[in-house]
């Protein structure tokens, strides 16, 4: 199970404390204005939180996905404006392909649509690459080959998502990777997309837990009509529904991280649980977003209030590394191809011990 080993306890405590101290409102605001949170990244890296998944021999910590869940969850809970989960995922990919992991933030490219790797060089364009312009290296996976590309071998055109986090357009023109290696196995879905999706699912679960907690605290404090908002049944009903959906998203994300550990070399074995986690997180996001903002009223719509630093990311993350429809179609096609008679047996088979 996730979050129960000694390693996980240490990671959770360290990540929680560092993020609490360093992701301040000032840092979030400045990041959005284009100031890279140097100090935040430095402490995360110094404490080993940026590379939990790469093997020790390659510069990582060699932790399990179950252990690493707590970092991704905390990154979402505290909405860290740095490519922490992307770097974790990229480090895992590099490790699996036998490539030494460089220090510094890594930019994980989602899938390989629009990219061509042949004759040892990479060409094409990738959009929405998280913090490419801040990363020393880009990591792509093309058809089971993992590529480590120095950023200066690409043309990077900066852009941001609706939360102000870097989502750049990267163009390669016969770029030479610094290193490349083959993954031991490759499934039907891009491995980089799978990893990105599971990380986003965990971040979203963390973000939703935080948004629910902040909203509970707000409605207990804020009084209207002579009593706290919390005493109104309409508010109670709305927040209960949101809390249930947030709990579902967390359970689904934890399940997907555990599935990654059980999947062995072939991440396709975890595809179902990752897809399910991203679908339910996306659907939950809509409900939590609504409940949190509605309960906060106009103050939550201001830039001054901190709610939007989380809710804008929640919404942005819904669409990254595959939105709900993308992942729903992936697993829906599987169910339909196997047919009604196999649906239940396949489900129990997948979740058996």
């Amino acid at each position: 199970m996730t979050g129960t080993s000694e390693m996980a306890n240490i990671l959770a405590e360290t990540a929680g404390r560092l993020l609490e101290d360093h992701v301040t409102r000032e840092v979030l605001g400045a990041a959005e204005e284009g100031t890279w949170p140097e100090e935040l990244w430095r402490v995360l890296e110094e404490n080993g939180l940026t590379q939990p998944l790469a093997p020790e021999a390659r510069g990582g910590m060699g932790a399990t996905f179950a252990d690493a869940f707590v970092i991704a969850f905390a990154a979402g809970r505290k909405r860290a404006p740095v490519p922490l989960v992307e770097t974790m995922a990229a480090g895992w990919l590099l490790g699996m392909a036998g490539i030494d992991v460089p220090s510094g933030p890594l930019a994980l490219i989602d899938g390989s649509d629009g990219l061509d790797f042949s004759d040892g060089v990479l060409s094409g364009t990738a959009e929405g690459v998280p913090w490419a312009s801040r990363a020393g290296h880009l990591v792509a996976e093309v058809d089971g080959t993992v590529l480590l590309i120095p950023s200066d071998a690409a043309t990077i055109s900066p852009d941001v998502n609706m939360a102000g986090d870097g989502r750049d357009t990267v163009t390669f023109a016969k770029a030479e990777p610094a290193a490349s290696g083959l993954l031991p196995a490759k499934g039907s879905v891009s491995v980089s997309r799978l990893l990105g999706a599971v990380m986003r699912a965990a971040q979203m679960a963390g973000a939703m837990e935080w948004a629910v907690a902040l909203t509970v605290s707000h409605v207990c404090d804020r009084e209207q009509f002579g009593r706290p908002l919390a005493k109104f049944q309409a508010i109670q009903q709305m927040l209960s529904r949101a809390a249930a959906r947030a709990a579902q998203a967390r359970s689904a994300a934890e399940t997907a991280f555990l599935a990654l550990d059980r999947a062995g070399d072939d991440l396709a074995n975890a595809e179902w649980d990752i897809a399910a986690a991203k679908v339910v997180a996306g659907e939950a996001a809509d409900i939590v977003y609504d409940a949190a903002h509605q309960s906060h009223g106009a103050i939550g719509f201001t830039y001054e209030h901190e709610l939007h630093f989380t809710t804008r990311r929640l919404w942005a993350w819904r669409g990254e590394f595959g939105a709900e429809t993308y992942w729903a179609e992936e697993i829906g096609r599987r169910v339909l191809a196997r047919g009604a008679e196999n649906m239940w047996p396949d489900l129990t088979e997948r979740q058996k011990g």
Partner: protein
Amino acid sequence: MEDIRFTPGLLPSGAESLRAEVRAFIAEHLKGYPGVKRAKSWAGADPEFSQKMGAQGWIGMTWPKQYGGHERSFLDRYVVLEEMLAAGAPVAAHWVADRQSGPLLLRFGTEEQRQKILPAITRGESYFCIGMSEPNSGSDLASIRTKATKTDGGWLINGSKIWTSKAHMAHYMIALVRTQPQDVKDRHAGMSQFLIDMKATPGITVRPIRNMAGEQFFNEVFFEDAEVPDDALIGTEGNGWGQVTTELAFERSGPERYLSSYQLLFELVRALETDPSPADAAGIGRLAAHMSTLRQMSISIATMLEAGETPNLAAALVKELGVDYEQDMPNRAHEIRGVSPRMGGDGYEQVMAYMTMAARSFSLRGGTREIMRGIIARGLGLR
């Protein structure tokens, strides 16, 4: 705010060999059983089927052997339940007795009650109904008025219960009644639970109530000077509210709170599987994603029960999520493959018609959606 965690768990490997046994049993005994009957899920009753399950040792599975139980784990029980639900097996006759009445008697009943009642339940021969709601007491259960008055050697019960599923076939009712007048300062005081023999007690009338799907499943039950003996009292006089809260936790914690409409998903997939569009696949995928994650949460609750915990808040959460999912199924199915289902149409149409009507009860039975959200709100610290 309570910490709400669902630790992902896996069923032990022993549970999987049991699963194979259950599937073989279902394949043998439910061969050719039509989809529209399977769609009734745990509202479909067949005493013969219940007795066969009893003979397999699949009723009262976790109870002590001295009462006819089998001392198996909650996870084994979970496997039997979910396989029966996925198959749409007619488990209604014994369902309430196995799920809540038996466990309630184990917790609060007298030794004599346990010895007399529990073995027959485990054989699939003794059925129970739930005596909670009254004509003027639905969600506000503490406002019940049916009362028991002490006599020499027994109690006289007067009043009525309503929405009592299967009262017409039940051998016993566990009824929550007033043994003291209502105290405005302590609304939960003065209630007690009684074990009422539905077949042998004079003064009981059962009036069937037809539901909107045309079924005669629930009833109104009238008590007119119905006399029960002293030993019909369950637990402690005046402790009825505490006991009924425990009983409701049993009632709310199982996989039936997300699997009731599985048969519609099954028929929908069958209707689409030969030539699905990308939109069909996405629609099915969303439902499959929910089913998969709800099952994981449901297993997590079974794991907590096995560990001796009482996950009341977690159970309320899963009921909220599960009911949302299973009740929305006809609407989702309509979006994917909209029809005006004919009662004599194909399997999909028949199940769609039944489920569209039956699903209305999902967010009412076992505590309304609003009551469940109220329980969650208390866990969040809002009330």
